[in-house]
């Protein structure tokens, strides 16, 4: 069929020889330049494949890659930012904070660094999660001033760095320091401190126990101690949950979340930018 070119009786034109459901397509020629343009695109594709990487494992004659572009772009960006970064490195955090332009730059850079390094635990925007402090609220276990935040980022908490801040809550239940009944009484007292529903009689029994065992760190009124990293217990913010069961777990087995140190892993300027970013999340003191 295909070899036999037919003539269409109505128009007198030849057909292409293709037939679909009894309908035959007329041979309506395209202009040659159109055809040559098509050939040119094929040629272009071939030339392109030879010059640029198109087949896995073959680099192409020009040895050009997107990765190399990326490296160059990143390098150019780093160079463009260098003057600002150098100034941040040279100045103290307080000084950077007073310069609106530097501050804006630092906060933007800080956000990028935060999302790369910190957001895995603290979530983007510092939203936090159970066991990972919310950095946008107004409760700071180890203090929320610029200096406090910088120290925490730099050396970590309960980490491997020599200057890492440490504090260990005793395991009152697991180590048998308090009996289960005593623990329940202390828990009721803690609920009372944070103005939650509680058993008044048990809380009253727990009060002296609290003063004896807990107040050294958490203070008599449960307001905590930032020097020791003892969280306030009289507020509404709970790192591991504020329910009766969660508080009991904390008293029984203690909690000791650790944060890695970033000194030596992030450069000076980045640590300063991170500090300013975290401080600006809304809870900085």
């Amino acid at each position: 069929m295909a070899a036999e070119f037919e003539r269409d009786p109505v128009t007198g034109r030849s057909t292409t020889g293709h037939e679909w459901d009894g309908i035959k397509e007329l041979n309506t020629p395209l202009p040659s330049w159109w055809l040559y343009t098509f050939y040119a695109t094929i040629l272009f594709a071939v030339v392109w494949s030879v010059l640029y990487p198109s087949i896995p494992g073959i680099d192409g004659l020009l040895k050009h890659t997107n990765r190399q572009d990326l490296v160059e772009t990143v390098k150019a960006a780093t160079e463009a930012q260098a003057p600002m970064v150098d100034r941040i490195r040279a100045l103290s955090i307080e000084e950077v904070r007073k310069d609106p332009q530097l501050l804006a730059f630092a906060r933007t850079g800080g956000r990028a660094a935060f999302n790369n390094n910190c957001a895995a635990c603290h979530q983007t925007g510092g939203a936090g999660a159970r066991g990972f402090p919310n950095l946008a609220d107004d409760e700071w276990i180890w203090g929320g001033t610029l200096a406090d935040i910088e120290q925490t980022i730099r050396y970590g908490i309960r980490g491997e760095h020599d200057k890492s801040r440490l504090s260990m809550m005793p395991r009152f239940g697991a180590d048998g320091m308090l009996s289960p009944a005593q623990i329940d009484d202390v828990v009721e007292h803690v609920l009372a401190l944070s103005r939650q529903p509680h058993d008044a009689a048990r809380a009253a029994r727990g009060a002296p126990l609290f003063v004896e065992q807990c107040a050294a760190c958490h203070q008599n009124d449960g307001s905590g101690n930032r020097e020791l990293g003892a969280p306030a217990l009289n507020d509404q913010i709970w790192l591991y949950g504020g329910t009766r069961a969660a508080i009991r777990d904390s008293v029984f087995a203690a909690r000791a979340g650790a944060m890695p140190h970033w000194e030596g892993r992030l450069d000076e300027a980045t640590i300063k930018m991170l500090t300013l970013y975290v401080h600006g999340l809304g809870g900085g003191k």
Partner: protein
Amino acid sequence: MKSLSSREREAAPTNQSAPGPLYADRVKVYPKRISGTWRRVKWAILVACLSVYYGGAWLRWDRGPGAPDQALLIDMSGPRAYFFDIEIWPQEVYYITGLLVLAAVGLFFVTSLFGRVWCGYACPQTVWTDLFMLVERWIQGDRSARIRLDKASWGVRKIALKGATHAAWLLIAAATGGAWVLYFDDAPTVVREFFRGESTTGVYFFVGLFTATTYVLAGWAREQVCTYMCPWPRFQAAMLDEHSAAVTYRAWRGEQRGPIRKGVAPAPGTGDCIDCKACVYVCPTGIDIRDGLQIQCIGCGLCIDACNEIMGKVDRAPNLIAWTSVAYEAERAQGRPGRYRFVRPRTILYAALLAVVATVMVVALALRTTVEVNVLRDRMPQFVLLADGSVRNGYTVKILNKERRAASFRIEATGFAGLVLRPAQGEAQNGALTVQAKPDSVETVPLFLKAPRAASGPASRGVTFRVLDAQGRLVARRDTVFIGPAR
């Protein structure tokens, strides 16, 4: 290459026993010079279009200090678009969309009334092709001279004429590409930098690109753009009906065609067409209008001028080819007086659409505010619980001050009892926040709303930000939500 009329080409396969080629060479068209009413209209429109295009960027418009004084300017780095007194910000591109919709409906309307007038008179492809043909005719002569020149062997004369033509085309093309970039930056500066070699690669690239496309499209591709590349002829048929005017050969009057011989009375039944082919020779797309309406016809009316000239010479009534409608001609062919119908459902519809879109545009422009306010709720974290048990939400209020002077605004928040507003830095005064907005810029104001946990409710509650100007007038109110913990 043997020059065939499109009719001969169309008919060619019938005379051959071999199958036709799958690809055909372009048949070069040699349009003949013509003068007449439609040619004059076409010249007038050409001059008008080119003057606007080449001159537009040079119009100055004083907008005061700190603002560009170019009447028509698309400032990419600004980023603003200036159109005389109107200043468009990037987020207002819908005005451009509106303009395009207006242009499209306008095109539909005109097409339903008068067929392809856009193609024949105002389309840039037509305008520049016409200009290129004019240059070609000046240098190489009219139709027969050009055919002879193409057939002649290469010699000094041919090289000189062809070379001069292409040089002139390239010059016009370069001016076209050059004029384009003038709309994107201060025109005198662009020109100065361009010739001193100080422009950016982007500028040179675009001038080069538009020079090349103008040269290729108007010099070489010509009618092939209209026939093969342009989508418009393919769907404009949907805008036409039997009452739309189009360039039409009045077959009932013209047929039977026959030459006039001196002293010989025409045979009975002979029509007015003397088969002189003048209409074919002037056609820029190289077609024979006597074959009826064709996709290749751009409705330029040059064949009308050509035929009228002939009709005048042979002393017959003009307008054997005319702007007329199928319905009108059908009536006339029956011997009844024809009637044009311009008011038809589709023209009414298009006119109404045109009026609606134009009204919307005018109203939108008239009501356009010089201040715009956007409120973005912080998503991460959704809310923050504070030590005292209250809930805090973060928002970013963006105030777009489109005026060319500084302004002061007051931001308030209302919603439910216990709601407290505080800026990200510092304290609020009397529960509100005063913001100084720089001229012609966006002021970004991060702020917090705080509410007691009990008042914030179970999940989300509506809050409203109100922005007032220095005189205390309400500029904008934006509704958003305040989200609290689920339990």
